[in-house]
């Protein structure tokens, strides 16, 4: 059986969001003006990043659900993508802050 449009849409949104989160973490750590700009929006760059992640997850999930874009992807491939994204994003953060 397949996953529903809502589930598959939010799974794909989560995979993209966790990768984006790691990319944004590295970018703001490497480029101080970006960190300062994010800090100026809410008072702290971490708060801004959390809100961006949340909006991205909900927004992409809603878009993928309404367009049924993720529903066309095989369920096993979708689950593997999420697991792979979390592993890459988690290890990426660890490696970045350990060595860069």
């Amino acid at each position, binding site marked *: *059986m*397949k*996953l*529903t449009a*809502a*589930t598959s849409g*939010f*799974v794909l949104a*989560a995979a993209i*969001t*966790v990768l984006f*989160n*790691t990319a944004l*973490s590295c970018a703001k*750590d490497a480029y101080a003006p970006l960190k300062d700009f994010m800090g100026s929006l809410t*008072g*702290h760059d*971490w*708060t801004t*990043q*959390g809100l961006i*992640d949340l909006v991205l*997850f909900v927004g992409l*999930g809603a878009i993928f659900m309404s367009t049924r874009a993720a529903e066309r992807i095989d*369920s*096993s491939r*979708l*689950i593997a993508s*999420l*697991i792979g994204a*979390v592993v890459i*994003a*988690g290890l990426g*953060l*660890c490696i970045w*802050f*350990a060595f860069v």
Partner: protein
Amino acid sequence: MNISTSDIILLAHAAFGATGCLAALWVFVEVLNAQPANAVRIRAAAVVAAICMAGAWICGGYWYVHFYPAEKALILKGPWPFAHNLFMETKEHLFFITAILAFLLPIAARERLYVNPAARQLVLSVAALIVITGLAVEGAGAVINHGVKVALLRDASKGSQ
């Protein structure tokens, strides 16, 4: 006894995080034996996991923004600067991944898990990832705490000499 607001918020953050991990583990175990009879329980546990992670986010975020800078300064001057440079930096960004997964869990748990193997595999994967990343974040919190402790102990031992 002198328990400050900062202490309460910090302990609430850790307690919410640990409870969220336990709720995700509860979902994992229930889904191993998914049936119509435990479908409501699985959905309830998934919602508990999401609510707890939201609580951990709010408490941890408030504490991090308002109270952590003083501890950060202590850690960086102490013998364990990596408690901030590696563990806090990784933890504060890794937590977002755990939180997003926790918000995904109730959505995935709405599927009819007892007749859908793909949905079961998804919920098991998401719950396991929450437990693994959540425990990593909890462990990092312990290292950060110890970074403050060794810095204070060194200052105290210098003062007593």
